[in-house]
C-alpha cells in the first residue's frame, strides 16, 4: 500500500500516461501507478472479457471469495489503451476529486 499522495505536480505524469497508457512508465509515473493500482481488493477495477482480445466490460471486485464480480455492462471497451486511460481517470478523480479531462484540456 502506497503512502504517496497525488498533487498538481503529478499532472505531468497523468499526461504521460494519457499519451501512452501501455508504455513503459517513467519513475515518476510508476510512483503514481503504484498508488492508483494499489489498494485493497474490494471495489478494485478490473476488465471483464466479453470477447478475448477484442471487447471488455469494466468490472469491480468484491471483498470475499464466493461473491460475484460486479460487471458494469454499460461501460464497454474495444481498446486496452482506452480502458487503461478510463480507469486511470476514475481512480485519479476518486483520489483527488479532479477531472483529468478538464485538467489536461
Amino acid at each position, binding site marked *: 500500500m502506497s503512502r504517496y499522495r497525488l498533487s498538481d505536480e503529478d499532472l505531468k505524469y497523468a499526461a504521460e500516461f494519457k499519451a501512452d497508457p501501455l508504455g513503459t512508465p517513467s519513475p515518476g509515473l510508476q510512483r503514481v501507478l503504484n498508488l492508483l493500482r*494499489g489498494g485493497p481488493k474490494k471495489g478494485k477495477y478490473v*476488465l471483464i*472479457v466479453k470477447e478475448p482480445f477484442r471487447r471488455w466490460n469494466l468490472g469491480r471486485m*468484491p471483498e470475499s471469495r464466493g461473491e460475484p464480480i460486479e460487471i458494469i455492462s454499460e461501460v464497454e471497451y474495444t481498446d486496452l489503451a482506452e480502458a487503461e486511460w478510463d480507469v486511470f481517470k476514475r481512480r485519479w478523480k476518486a483520489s483527488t476529486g479532479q477531472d483529468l479531462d478538464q485538467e489536461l484540456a
Partner: protein
Amino acid sequence: MTRILAYTDQISSAPGGSIQVKVSCDGLDQYDARLIRVIQGDVNPSGPGYREEVVDLDLGGPNPARFQPIHAGSYGIAESAPPLDMGKSFSMQALIWPTLPGRGPQTILSYEDPNSSAAFRLYLDAAGALAFQVTESQGDSDSISTGSPLFGQRWYLASGEYDVVSRTLTVIQVPLISTPQAQDRLKDSKVVTIGTAKAGPDGVIMIAAHSGSERPAVGHFNGRIEAPKLFARLLDEHEKVNPDTAKSQDLIAAWDFSVGISTDTIIDVSDNQLNGRLVNLPARGVTGYLWNGDEHCWKNNFDHYAAIHFHDDDLYDCEWETDFEVKLPDSLNSGVYAVHLQSGSEVYYTPFAVRPPRGNRSAPVAFILPTASYMAYANNRIGIDVPETEIVTGRLVQMNPIDLFMQTHPEIGLSFYDVHNDGSGVYYSSRLRPIVQMQPKQIGHLGGVGSNLWQFNADTHILAWLEQLEQPFDVITDEDLEKEGSQVLDGYRAVITGTHPEYYSVGMLDSLQSYLNAGGRLMYLGGNGFYWRVSFHPTLPGVIECRKSEDGIRVYPPPPGEFYASFTGEYTGLWRRNGRAPNELVGIGMVSQGFDCSSPFILTEASRDARVSFIFDGVEGPVVGDYGLSGGGAAGLELDATNHAWGTPPNTLVLATSKRHSDLYLMTPEDMDDPAPGLGGTEAEIIRAEMVFFETPKGGAVFSTGSIAWCGSLSHINYSNDVARITGNVLKRFLDPTPFPVM
C-alpha cells in the same frame, strides 16, 4: 458461463490404456465428447492461430448430463463406533487451536447415530464460543455455550460432558496460556429436559465436522485439533483443566494424530481401536500445543506434531462417478491430448498425455509435460484474490469466464499460490478435481502483454513449434518421471522441458540428472525451472505437497517448525536450499520476475565461440527476439542467470543476455540479503536472462534459454525468425548422435 467441468483419473497413459472421464454439468441435458490432439492453444488473433486435431475415435454419446457436486472441507471420520448409550454419562475433549472462531458454527467432535437423530456434538457456536449439544433419538436437542468467544491462534482445552444423573450439560474452555483480562477461561452448565435414549450400533464419530443431510459433512472446523477423546463417563476436575492427564479408563476413543503423519489414517489408541480416515487431506506434520522450537522435523519428535490443521476449503478428490472411459487405441501416437466436451456453446477440455508404451520410444525427442507445475498452479487465484496482481503485471487484470467461475465457486480448490480461508498456507494440491486453467484456449494473468498464456497453454507454443518442424516427439509427464525414474528418458537423443517447470520432486530431478549423466541432451526452453521441491504422496494418487520454507517468491511462509513435508518427511523449500540449485543441472537459476513487457536477448562475444557455431547458423544478431506473444520479447516473465557459487558448471558459455527490463522486474527475495536502492530492472545488473550452453560428460549437452517468454517468440513471422532458428539449430544438433567433445 462454465457449466461443464471434468477431470480424468490419470494424467498420463500409454496406447492401449484407458482414461476415465468424470464430468459434471450444471443445467445441461446432454453433451458430446470427442478426443482431440492439442497442437496450438493460443487464441490470440496476433498469434499463429488455434489448432487442434480431432482423433477418429468414437467416444459414444451424446452422453446424458448430470451434476456432480464438489464437497470441499476436510474432516476425520471413524465408523462402527460402539452404541451410543445416552443412558450413561458421556464426555468429549480435545485440544483446539481455532483460526476462524466466529465464522459460523464449527464442529470439533461429533458422535452420531446414523439410524436416528441421537448425537453429541462439541463445537464452536456462531459467536466462536465453545458449546456442547445433545440430541435425542427423536430429534429434540439442547445445548450449552460458554458464551465467550475463543481467541484465534491460541491453544485451548475444550471439554463437554453430559451427566445422566443430574441431566446436566457442561462445557469448559480452558486456555493453555492464561492472559489477564482475556476472560476466555470459562465453564458453564445447565440442566436439560430432553429424555434419554439408547441408539443402536454403528455410530459415526466425526472430527472437525458433522454429517449433513445434503452433503457428507457440514460445520467444518478451521484450525488445529489435537488428541480428541470420547469417554463413557464424566471427566474429573483435574482432567477438565489439564491436557494429557485424562485417564484411560472408560475411553470410547482417543486418537493420536502423531501416529501415521504421512498417511490419511487416524489411529485410535484406545482399546476400541476405532481407526478412521481423513477426508480431503487436512494438513499433517503441523506443530501441536507441545511444540517449543526444540525440534523442527516431525520425524524426530512425533509428540510435538500431534495436531491436524483442518480447513473448510481443503479438497483432495472430488470422488465423482466416471461418465465414460476412453480406450486409447494401440496405434495412437504419443502426444498431448484432451477430451473435448461440448453442449451448445458450453465447452470444456480435460487434457492428459499419451506417453509411449512402457519400455519403448516412438520418437528421438521427449517433451516433458510439466504436470507437477500444472498441479502447483491448479486453479490459482492470483488474478482474483491478489490485489497486487495489477501492479506487478503493469496493466488492468482481465477476468476471463473461468475467473468469474472460480470467484463464485471457491469449492473448486486451491493452489500453492493461495491461502486457505483462515489465512494459512496451502500445502497440498491435487489433480483429482477440475483444473479449469489447464485447458487450451485459456488466458492467464502472468503471461505478459500479448497472449498472456501461462503453464499448460503457454507450453502449447512448444508443441506447435515441434509440429511445424514435423519433428516426431514423445510426451512424458512429471508423474512418469517420478514413478518410473530415469528409464523413461533412456535412449532419447534430446529432452525438451516446458516453459516453466518450476516444481520438481527429488525423483524427477534424479531422473533428469541421470539422463544427463549418461550423455543425454537437455533443452531447457523456459525460466524459473527446478525451483521448488515438491513431494508426491507415497500411496495417494494425483497429489503433491509443497511447503515454501526459508525464502523464495511465495504467497505465504510456512510457520516455524513446519519446513518438512508430511508426505515424505523431506526438507522442503527451494532446491537451492536443498543443495541442488538449478544452476548445477541447467547452468542457470531464477533471478527475477516481472509480468509486463519482455526484452530481447543480445548476443555475447561467447556466441561466436566455435563450440556453439551450430547454434547461431543463419543468425545475424546481435539482437535476438525483440518480438513475441509473451510480453513482446524473448526474455521475460521469469528470468534465470548463471551463478557459479550456486553450481553453474565452469565450462558454461553465456551466449546471450537481456540488458534492460522495467522496474516491475525485481530481484528474488533469496538474493536480497541486504536490501538497498536500485533493485528494479532498469538498474540492477542481476536482473537479466542468460542463455547458456555447456557440454556434459559422456558427450551430452545442455542448452538453456533462461526465460519463460522464449517460446512465445517461436511462431513470429510463421516461425521464420532468430528465436525459432536458434531453437531449431540446437534441436538438430542434439538429435545428431555424434558426441559433444568432452573438454
